[in-house]
C-alpha cells in the first residue's frame, strides 16, 4: 500500500516529519517497506532555457545548443528531436547523477564538439516511460529554479506492508486514523456527502443469486449519470495516482481508483450505452465467458459471482469488470456501482482465475459494510464535479448488513495476557481514538467500528491497546523455573540422529543437507516415484517428487563437487525419506557416499579406489553410534537394485529386520543420472534400530583377569563362494567361553590353492578366566575350532 506524504496530509493534520511518521507506522504494526522521495535523487536538476541551437557540424541528428540556467550559459550537444530554441528544459550539469541511465555526467566532447551537461527526458529522471524527446516544461517555468520545486516533487512516497487483517488501512484515511490514534496529529473531519438525483435511473440492478448464494453480494447500490464528459482527469488527480504507481486512464476510472486507494472503497463504472437492459448480480453458469479489462478472456467454471446484463456476463463481481461495458473518452452516460461482495467467494474466484486486482485485494479482506452508501455519494460528487452530467437518484438491491459487533473487555487482560500494566482509562482512551465505542464498567462493552472487520475477541482488543501504546514498555519476565525432570530434552530418535552425525563426521564424512524432493524419474530408480509422493506444483521439474532415498541427491552432490575439480569426496546426510504420504511413511535415515580415491595421493601410501568395504565400515560405525547391537548383525549378500548386485549387502537383525544396506552404486543408475563412478554408499534405517534396553546409567561390575591371553593362527581352505562370515561364526562358536575374538588376517586364492577354493587365515584369541591355559588346553581348543570349522562350512585346515 503506497501513499505520498501530501496525500496522507489530506486526512491527517500533522507537523510530524517523515522520519517520525515512518517510525510510528512501524511501531503500530504498519510495517514500512520503503520511503522514496524523488527530491533525493533529482535535487541538482534545474529549470533552464535553450537560448539557441545549431546543427552539429559532423552529425546530422545532433544539435549544438546554448543553454542558460539563469546564471551561466553552457553548450550542450543534444540528440533529442524536440530540442529547439526557446523551450524550457530540465538541466543536469557535470557531476550530476542521472538515475534513469545510471550515469554521472561529465564534460564530454561529442564528435569534436564540447558538451557540458544534459537536457533530460522523463525516463532519464525515472518520472515516466517517455523517451521520445527531452522534457519541455511550461513556458512560464522560472529559469534557474530547482526542478523539484518547479514540479512539486518534494513529496516522500511511503510503501507499507499491510497485514491481511488490516483492510481498513488499504485506504489512506485508515492509515491516517491509526497515526492520529498513536498521537501523530489529528484526523481531519470527513464531510458527509450527498448528491441529489433529479430523475430515476432507467437501468436498475437485481440480485439473482439464489438463496444458497445470497451472501455472495449483500448490497449493490448505484447511480446513473447522463451527459458526462469523460476525458483525462485533472492534473492533481493524475499526480495522485502516478505518485503511487497507478496509470491515469480517464476521469471516470481515475475517480474509482482514487477512492479505492483513498478510502479503501472499491467502485466500478459502466458505460450505460453499452449495457443491454438491466444489471444482474448472479451466479455464473459453467462456460459463460467475457473479455475483461485486463484484456484476458475468462471462462466461468460455474459458481462465480458475476455481473451481467440482459445480454450476458461482463465481469466478476468485486474482482474485475468487462471490456465490453468499460468506459472510454466517448462515454456520455455512465452507471456507477458500489457493492458489497463476500470475502471468501471473492477470494475463491480470484484464485481460481488468477486475477489480482485492487478490488479483489480489498473485498477478500473485508471492506467496511456500513460505508457503501457514503462511498457511492462521495464518488457521485466527484463525477459531477469532474465530468459534469446529470445524476439519477440512487438505486440499490439488497441491503446494508447489520453491524453491531461488541466485545467484552476486562482491562486487566492487558496485563495478564499482554504483560503491560497500564491504567484502564488509558486503554479506554486508546480504543476510543481508534473509533471503538466503550461503555459499561470493567469489564467494558466495546463496540467495534464497522471498518475493523478483523476484531473479534478480547485478545484483539488487548492487541489494539498494546500496539497503540507501544510494545517497548512490556517488561521482560523470565519463565518460572520448573521442577527438575529426569528425562532428556531430546527424545531417543533425536539423540540417535545427533550421535550418528558426529560419528560419521569423525570418520571423515562431511554432512550435507539436500532437498527433500528430487526428480521423479530418479526417484523411480531408487524404489520411489509413486504418484502419492509427487508434488502437484513443484518449483521445478528437477524437484517434483518426495525422495525415497537420499542416495540420488548425494550422488548428484558428488558429481557437482567433481565438476569443480574436487576429489576424495565423502558425504553423508541424516534426514527424512518418504515411503508414502502418511505420518508413518516418513523415515529417519542416515546415508552416505564415498567417491573416487580412498584417500589423497600421498608419498606414504599407495592410492586405491573406494570399495564396498568402506561403505560397510561406515554403515557399521553409524549403527554402532545409533545403539544397534552390532555384534549380532547378520550380513546378507543381497541389497536393493540400485546397488551393484555382486558388491553390496544388507545388515540385519534377524532375517527380516534390515538395519542398513551398503555397496557400490549400480552403474546403470549412475549412467541414468549422468553421475560418474565409482561411488560406494550406505543407508542406515535409524527408525529400525531397536531402542537400547538399558534403563539406567549403571554398566555393571566388570571382572578382568590379568592372565595372559593366547593367540593361535589357522589357515583354512573353504569353497570360494562360501561367506567368510560363516567360518568366523563357526570358529567363534567352537567355545564361546574361551574364544574372545576372531579375526581374518589374510585371504588367498591362486597357486597352491585348489580351483574353486580359497585360503582364509584366521587368528583366534583365547582368554583364560581362572588360570593360564596349559598346552593341552590350547591344543584341545584348536581341535575344537578345526572340527567346528569343518562341520559348519566344510573348512579344511591347510597343512
Amino acid at each position, binding site marked *: 500500500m503506497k501513499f505520498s506524504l501530501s496525500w496522507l496530509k489530506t486526512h491527517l493534520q500533522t507537523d510530524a516529519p517523515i522520519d517520525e511518521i515512518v517510525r510510528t507506522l512501524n511501531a503500530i504494526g504498519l510495517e514500512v517497506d520503503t520511503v522514496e522521495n524523488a527530491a533525493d535523487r533529482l535535487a541538482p536538476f534545474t529549470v533552464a532555457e535553450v537560448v539557441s541551437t545549431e546543427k552539429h557540424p559532423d552529425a546530422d541528428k545532433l544539435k549544438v545548443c546554448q543553454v542558460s540556467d539563469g546564471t551561466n550559459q553552457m553548450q550542450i550537444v543534444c540528440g533529442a528531436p524536440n530540442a529547439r530554441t526557446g523551450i524550457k528544459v530540465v538541466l543536469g550539469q557535470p557531476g550530476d547523477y542521472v538515475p534513469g541511465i545510471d550515469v554521472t555526467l561529465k564534460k564530454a566532447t561529442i564528435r569534436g564538439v564540447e558538451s557540458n551537461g544534459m537536457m533530460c527526458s522523463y525516463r532519464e529522471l525515472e518520472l515516466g516511460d517517455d523517451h521520445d524527446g527531452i522534457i519541455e516544461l511550461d513556458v512560464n517555468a522560472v529559469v534557474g529554479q530547482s526542478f523539484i520545486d518547479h514540479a512539486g516533487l518534494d513529496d516522500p512516497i511511503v510503501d507499507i506492508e499491510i497485514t491481511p487483517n488490516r483492510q481498513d488501512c488499504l485506504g489512506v484515511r485508515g492509515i491516517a486514523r491509526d497515526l492520529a490514534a498513536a498521537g501523530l496529529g489529528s484526523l481531519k473531519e470527513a464531510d458527509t456527502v450527498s448528491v441529489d438525483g433529479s430523475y430515476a435511473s432507467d437501468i436498475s440492478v437485481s440480485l439473482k443469486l439464489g438463496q444458497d448464494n445470497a451472501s455472495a453480494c449483500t448490497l449493490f447500490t448505484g447511480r446513473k449519470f447522463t451527459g458526462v464528459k469523460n476525458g483525462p482527469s485533472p492534473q492533481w488527480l493524475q499526480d495522485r495516482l502516478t505518485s503511487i504507481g497507478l496509470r491515469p486512464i480517464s476521469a471516470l476510472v481515475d475517480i474509482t481508483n482514487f477512492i479505492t486507494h483513498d478510502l479503501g472503497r472499491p467502485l466500478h463504472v459502466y458505460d450505460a450505452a453499452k449495457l443491454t437492459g438491466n444489471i444482474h448480480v448472479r451466479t455464473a453458469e459453467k462456460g459463460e465467458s467475457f473479455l475483461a479489462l485486463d484484456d484476458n478472456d475468462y471462462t466461468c467454471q460455474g459458481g462465480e459471482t458475476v455481473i451481467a446484463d440482459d445480454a450476458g456476463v461482463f465481469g466478476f463481481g468485486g474482482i474485475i469488470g468487462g471490456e465490453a461495458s468499460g468506459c472510454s473518452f466517448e462515454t456520455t452516460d455512465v452507471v456507477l456501482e458500489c457493492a458489497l461482495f463476500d470475502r471468501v467467494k471473492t477470494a475463491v474466484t480470484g484464485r481460481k482465475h488468477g486475477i489480482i486486482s485492487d478490488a479483489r485485494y480489498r473485498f477478500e479482506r473485508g471492506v467496511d459494510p456500513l460505508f457503501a452508501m457514503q462511498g457511492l455519494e462521495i464518488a457521485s460528487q466527484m463525477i459531477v464535479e469532474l465530468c459534469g452530467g446529470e445524476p439519477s437518484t440512487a438505486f440499490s438491491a439488497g441491503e446494508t448488513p447489520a453491524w453491531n459487533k461488541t466485545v467484552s473487555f476486562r482491562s486487566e487482560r492487558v496485563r495478564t495476557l499482554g504483560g503491560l500494566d497500564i491504567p484502564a482509562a488509558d486503554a479506554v482512551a486508546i480504543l476510543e481514538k481508534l473509533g471503538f465505542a466503550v461503555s459499561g464498567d470493567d469489564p467494558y462493552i466495546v463496540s467495534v467500528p464497522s471498518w475493523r472487520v478483523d476484531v473479534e475477541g478480547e485478545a484483539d482488543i488487548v492487541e489494539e491497546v498494546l500496539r497503540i501504546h507501544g510494545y517497548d514498555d512490556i517488561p521482560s519476565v523470565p519463565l518460572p523455573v520448573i521442577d527438575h525432570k529426569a528425562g532428556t530434552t531430546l527424545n531417543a530418535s533425536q539423540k540417535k540422529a545427533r550421535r550418528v552425525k558426529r560419528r560419521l563426521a569423525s570418520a571423515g564424512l562431511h554432512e550435507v543437507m539436500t532437498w527433500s524432493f528430487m526428480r521423479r524419474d530418479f526417484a523411480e530408480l531408487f524404489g520411489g516415484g509413486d504418484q502419492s509422493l509427487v*508434488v502437484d506444483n513443484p518449483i521445478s521439474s528437477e524437484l517434483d517428487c518426495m525422495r525415497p532415498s537420499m542416495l540420488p541427491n548425494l550422488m548428484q552432490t558428488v558429481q557437482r563437487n567433481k565438476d569443480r575439480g574436487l576429489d576424495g569426496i565423502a558425504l553423508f546426510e541424516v534426514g527424512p525419506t518418504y515411503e508414502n504420504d502418511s505420518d508413518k511413511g516418513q523415515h529417519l535415515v542416515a546415508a552416505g557416499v564415498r567417491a573416487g580415491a580412498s584417500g589423497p595421493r600421498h608419498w606414504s601410501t599407495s592410492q586405491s579406489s573406494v570399495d564396498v568395504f568402506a561403505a560397510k565400515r561406515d554403515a557399521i560405525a553409524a549403527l554402532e553410534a545409533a545403539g544397534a547391537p552390532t555384534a549380532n548383525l547378520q550380513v546378507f549378500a543381497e541389497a536393493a537394485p540400485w546397488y551393484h548386485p555382486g558388491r553390496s549387502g544388507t545388515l540385519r537383525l534377524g532375517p527380516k529386520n534390515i538395519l542398513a544396506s551398503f555397496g557400490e552404486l549400480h552403474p546403470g543408475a549412475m549412467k541414468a543420472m549422468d553421475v560418474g563412478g565409482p561411488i560406494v554408499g550406505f543407508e542406515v534405517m535409524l527408525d529400525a534400530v531397536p531402542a537400547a534396553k538399558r534403563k539406567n546409567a549403571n554398566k555393571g561390575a566388570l571382572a578382568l583377569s590379568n592372565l595372559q591371553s593366547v593367540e593361535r593362527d589357522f589357515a583354512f581352505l573353504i569353497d570360494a563362494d562360501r561367506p567368510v562370515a560363516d567360518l568366523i561364526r563357526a570358529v567363534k562358536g567352537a567355545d564361546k567361553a574361551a574364544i574372545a575374538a576372531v579375526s581374518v588376517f589374510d585371504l588367498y586364492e591362486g597357486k597352491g590353492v585348489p580351483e574353486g577354493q580359497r585360503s582364509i587365515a584366521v587368528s583366534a584369541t583365547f582368554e583364560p578366566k581362572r588360570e593360564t591355559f596349559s598346552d593341552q588346553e590350547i591344543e584341545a581348543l584348536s581341535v575344537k575350532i578345526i572340527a567346528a570349522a569343518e562341520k559348519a562350512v566344510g573348512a579344511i585346515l591347510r597343512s
Partner: protein
Amino acid sequence: MQEQIASLKADITARIAGTDSIAALEDVRVAALGKKGSVSGLMKGLGGMSPEERQVMGPALNGLKSDIAGDIAARKSVLETAELEARLAGERVDVSLPVLDHAAGSIHPNSQVMDEIAEIFAVLGFDVAEGPDLESDFHNFTALNIPEEHPARQDHDTFYLSPNAEGVRKVLRTHTSPVQIRTMLSKEPPIRIIAPGRTYRSDSDATHTPMFHQVEGLVIDKDTHLGHLKGTLEAFLKAFFEVDAVTLRLRPSYFPFTEPSMEVDVQCSFADGNVKIGDGNDWLEILGSGMVHSNVLKACNLDPDVYQGFAFGCGIDRLAMLKYGMNDLRAFFDGDLRWLRHYGFRALDLPTLAGGLSR
C-alpha cells in the same frame, strides 16, 4: 711383584683406552681377564704363595682385577654411546615431509545451530518435539486459524502433493507451527517445547530456498503472558549470540494463529557487510511470535479461558547465517565441499553451555 702389577695395570689401562670398538675392547678383556689372560695368570700364582705373601698380594691382585673390569665397563659405555650416535647419525629422515591428515569430516552448520538451540532451551525446561514434513491441511492451516481462502494462505506459497486415493492433498508443511497443534492435541499443559525441522515454500533467491529450516517454540500454561515471551526470547538470543545483552524491539504484526502478534527485531550493527548482534543502531527482523490465538487453543481442545501461552517461529538457516556469516542460503543445500570445510564444524565441537556454544 708390586712393580709387575703396576706395570701390567698401566699396560692394560692404556690398551683399554686405545680400543675403538666393542670387539677390540672384548679382545683386551679376554687378554686381561679371560681364563688365559694376564691378570688371571697372576691370580693363579696366588695359590703358590705363602700366607703372608697372599695376605698382601691377594687384595692387590683383586684390586687390579676390579679396576680393570671397571675401566672396561666404562670404556664399553663410551664405545656404545659412540656406536649408537654413529648409527643414529645414519638414520636421519626428512621430518619436513607432510603427513597424512587424520580423516576429518564436518557437521553442517544447521545441525550445529539446532544443537545449540536445543542446549539453550534445555536449560529453560523445553522438550524438543517433532512432526512430519507431509502435513494435513488441518494441522498446517485450519487448526492454526487459517481457514481455506484466508488471504494469509496465499502468502505461504504452499507445495501440495497430488491428491491421494481419497482425493485428499497433503501439504509440504509451510512452517513448523503444525507441531504446536500435534503437541497440544497429545499432551496436557503445562507445555514447553521447541520444534525444529524442515519446512517448504515455493520460493527461490539468495535468502529463500524451496526448503528451509525453522524452529518453533510453544509455551502453554495458565498465566504465561507477553512479558514471558519477551524474557524467553531475550534469554535465547543472548545465549545464542553469546553476548551480554540484547535489545529487542517488538513490532505489532499479524499471524492468524497468534493474537496479539508481533515481529521481533534485535538491535545490531551492520559494518563491512557483517551483522553484529548486541550493539549498534540498526534493527534486524529475526522472528515472528505472539500469544496463541484462542481459536488455536479451541482447535486443540484446550479451554482458552483456562489456558494461554505464547509461540514463536524462527529460521534456523537464518540464525546460522547471522551468527556465522554466510550470505547465500542456497549454498546450505548445495553440498560444496569447500563450503562445508569452511562453515562446517568438527565432530567434537558439540555445543555445551559449560564449554561454549561456538567453540
